[in-house]
């Protein structure tokens, strides 16, 4: 079942919205091509850091829909990090951030847990997937990247070109920077904060805002006080950065996320700083957020502090495995039984 005798990852089940993402498609916004990339860039970077991968390597972005993953043809090291998901290897619970070696016959299961919306699985491999426009990032709306431009689904097989040696068989890693906090999400005001009077900006910062139900990788919708514009709400289209908070005519903010369109025509009151966009992305529908504004110099300083954690290698605390399922102890020829071909 494997190609060229190399291992493959096999998707046994996948909920909606589970996609392959690298650091995004760069340089083509000017042609209307969305960057895509991870919703939580910090958790994505953390998973690749634990895996010992080059920065920006392709990971599986798991939504609250969850995924069950197996492998064939050889073992695959997989690092994971993100929201507080329920992660199990053959029913043995794993910490929210860590590392496992997936062997033929084993099953890695990720389910929505206590909190958070996105979890990243970074295999210690280079995937054998053809990039589209220089990136593996999946943008489902335009059908670009990933496997045939689509979200992962049961039956998908992800080829592996090369893999590097796992650092340990199983380990947990402390990643306090990914823990949820109640502290406000930091923003830099602008680029169109001059479309709002001072008291409207204060109203925006105070909130509180409830995350609406219809958010996705393109945008999150916020519900709260109605904001009014001083100069109308139609602007001639200009560029949109990730985390841009635009205020349409109904006065309810829309936060533009990884799959945002490159340009748009509503005034943007503020932009979530890079270090907090992941924390914001992890908020689930119905949860409450509020904002605080920082100067751009402070945003850069915070970014520097956050990125500093990746300057030294991760400390892997080994996990001793207790459960060995019979199917793993038997032989890997049972694996095909998972999954009628």
């Amino acid at each position, binding site marked *: 079942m494997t190609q060229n005798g190399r291992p493959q990852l096999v998707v046994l089940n996948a909920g909606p919205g589970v996609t392959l993402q690298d650091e995004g498609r*760069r*340089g*083509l*916004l*000017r*042609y*209307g*091509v969305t960057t895509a990339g991870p919703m939580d860039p910090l958790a994505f970077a953390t998973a690749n850091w634990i895996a010992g991968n080059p920065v920006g390597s392709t990971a599986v972005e798991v939504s609250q829909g969850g995924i069950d993953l197996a492998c064939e043809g050889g073992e695959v090291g997989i690092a994971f990090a993100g929201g507080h998901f329920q992660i199990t290897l053959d029913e043995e619970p794993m910490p929210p951030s860590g590392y496992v070696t997936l062997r033929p016959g084993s099953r890695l299961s990720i389910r929505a847990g206590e909190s958070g919306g996105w979890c990243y699985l970074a295999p210690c491999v280079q995937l054998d997937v053809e990039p*589209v*426009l220089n990136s593996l990032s999946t943008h489902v*709306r*335009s059908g*670009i990247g990933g496997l045939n431009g689509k979200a992962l689904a049961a039956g998908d097989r992800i080829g592996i070109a090369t893999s590097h040696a796992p650092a340990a068989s199983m380990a947990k890693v402390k990643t306090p920077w990914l823990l949820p906090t109640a502290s406000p999400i930091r923003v*830099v*005001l*602008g*680029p*169109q904060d001059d479309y709002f009077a001072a008291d409207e900006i204060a109203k925006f910062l105070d909130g509180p805002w409830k995350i609406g139900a219809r958010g996705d990788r393109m945008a999150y919708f916020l519900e709260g006080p109605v904001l009014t514009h001083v100069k109308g709400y139609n*602007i*001639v*289209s*200009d*560029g*949109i*950065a*990730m*985390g*841009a908070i635009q205020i349409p005519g109904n006065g309810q903010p829309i936060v533009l996320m990884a799959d945002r*369109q*490159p*340009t748009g025509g509503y005034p*943007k009151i503020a*932009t*979530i*700083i*890079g270090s907090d966009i992941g924390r914001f992305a992890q908020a689930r529908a119905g949860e409450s957020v509020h904002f605080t504004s920082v100067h*751009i*110099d402070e*945003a*850069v300083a915070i*970014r*520097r502090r956050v*990125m500093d954690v990746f300057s030294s290698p991760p400390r892997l605390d080994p996990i001793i495995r207790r459960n060995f399922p019979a199917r793993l102890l038997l032989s890997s020829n049972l694996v095909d039984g998972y999954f009628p071909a």
Partner: protein
Amino acid sequence: MTAAACDVRFLDAGETALVVEFGTRVDPSINALVLALDRDLSDRELEGIIETVPTYRSLMVHYNPFLIARGDLVRQVEELLATSSGEPVVGRNWEIPCCYDGQHGEDLDDIARTLGIGREDAIAHHAGATFRVYMCGFAPGFTYLGGLPEALHISRRESPRPPHAAGAVLVGGGLATIASFAMPTGWYVIGQTPERLYAPERQDAFLLSPGDTVRFRRIGVDEFDVLEAQAATAAVISRTFP
């Protein structure tokens, strides 16, 4: 117009994107300044610039603040604006086939009726004009064109019409576009091109760039079918001219 003659503003879109805003209107002279800065900044090959996004009226510069500080970026842009030759970007000149007949020009009767002109007049205005690519955006290959003759200025619809086909040539709100994907729209379908503005398997995946000019060559339904079959093989069926 020179950059000095309009009020250039530097606006932050977070700590990794800077908006250089030349104006707030759709105006060919403002767009020419945007595209000239885009070219000049690209020529300078500054470390830390990730990519730039020209729009009608502003240039968004995505940058890595660890490699180029905001203040340095602003200074570089100011210097470029002060020393720029002011030469507009010279793009390629395209002649793109467009069919106005039958279903291809689905909304032509609506356009003619709303504007109080004849159907053939509407076609003649559109096929006789030279458009300029102001910007791309919204979706891969989706292209916004300036230069729509006044006779074809039509307000956008109050509510969107059902999805048009890919390659729809649209007018609305004083602008024109070529839509690379099928989608609902508040604009009017005046014609359809068999050309593919975005073809990922083609060597040049994107046909048009900001600064290019576009003229439409009227074709009939039969020629549309022939050209569409050619375009499906990743051939470019439009022509460039000097």
